[in-house]
């Protein structure tokens, strides 16, 4: 199954099914997502093993830099150390997982998309970066927004959390309207979070393939700037996803923070 764009072959929109376990179809994106997750956990475990006060291992040093970077973002978003420390694991997980998932898709890793498997008479790629599948990004967005709601309810109670949306005279039609708009905006965040990540990474994949085929014999040369641009977008999108999650969390958790609420509207 391939799409055709101006007569060029591009990857189809949906992830392809490669095999099924007990009636549950396993797509290549799911398959590669498990591999990516295992790799992420493994490399973080190794880095944690070698981490010490004056790290001699270069890997541990790099990961400490990364965690320190996320820690700085968490502190500047939440405003105090306690809340930041509580939510640091979620943010670090999101960032590293999305970053590694994006980077595998930017044409960096040989074999991704080019190793094929034959199933049911169709030839499908065995590995597909999981952020180029809308199901994966939608799942991550639902999880993030669900966790934001969960933490907000645990922190403020159900009444306090509802007060965030509906201002004090509940019977006022204007307040009801504004509150409904806020609730709708909360649901819309799921859509924007997932569509942004999926759109950028998938369009980048297709763009690389299209440039490669348009340039003919010089595809390898024409791909270089596109791949570099995709590298930049991969890092930026992972950062944006984490930053928006942190901002949503800090806005939902109440008013003892110094975060900037106007950023959360995006």
């Amino acid at each position, binding site marked *: 199954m391939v*799409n055709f*764009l*101006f007569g060029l072959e*591009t990857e*189809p*929109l949906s992830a392809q099914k490669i095999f099924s376990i007990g009636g549950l179809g396993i797509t290549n994106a799911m398959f590669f997502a498990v591999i990516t997750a295992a790799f992420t956990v493994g490399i973080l475990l190794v880095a944690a093993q070698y981490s010490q006060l004056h790290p001699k291992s270069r890997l541990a040093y790099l990961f400490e830099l990364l965690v320190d970077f996320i820690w700085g973002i968490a502190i*500047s978003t939440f405003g105090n150390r306690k809340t930041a420390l509580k939510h640091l694991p979620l943010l670090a997980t999101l960032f590293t997982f999305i970053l590694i998932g994006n980077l595998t898709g930017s044409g960096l890793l040989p074999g991704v998309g080019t190793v094929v498997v034959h199933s049911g008479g169709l030839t499908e790629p065995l590995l597909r970066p999981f952020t180029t599948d809308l199901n994966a990004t939608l799942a991550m967005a639902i999880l993030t927004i669900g966790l934001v709601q969960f933490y907000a309810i645990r922190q403020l109670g159900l009444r306090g959390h509802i007060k965030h949306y509906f201002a004090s005279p509940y019977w006022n039609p204007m307040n009801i309207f504004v509150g409904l708009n806020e609730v709708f905006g909360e649901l819309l965040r799921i859509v924007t979070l997932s*569509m*942004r990540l999926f*759109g*950028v990474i*998938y*369009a*980048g994949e*297709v*763009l690389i393939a*299209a440039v490669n085929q348009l340039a003919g014999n010089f595809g390898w040369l024409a791909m270089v700037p596109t791949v570099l641009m995709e590298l930049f*977008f991969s890092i*930026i*999108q992972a*950062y*944006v996803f984490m*930053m928006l999650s942190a901002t949503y969390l800090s806005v939902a958790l109440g008013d003892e923070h110094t975060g900037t609420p106007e*950023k959360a509207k*995006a």
Partner: protein
Amino acid sequence: MNNVDPALVKGLAIGLGAIGPAIGVGLIGSAAVGAIGRNPEMQGRILSTAFVMAGLVDAVLAFVLLIVFTT
């Protein structure tokens, strides 16, 4: 309208869809450069915010590319 070449429609969609994000990225860049010019010691924070905003704006162009490449 029946005999319009789809390639023309796709090209127009990319071209017209790129106008908005291009203006947006330009505005972000000019605002960031102006802000850094005003207080250079805040360069790191301004740049990181500008990159986030550029990422948000680029998503619009990505949607255009997505729709064009998949239809």
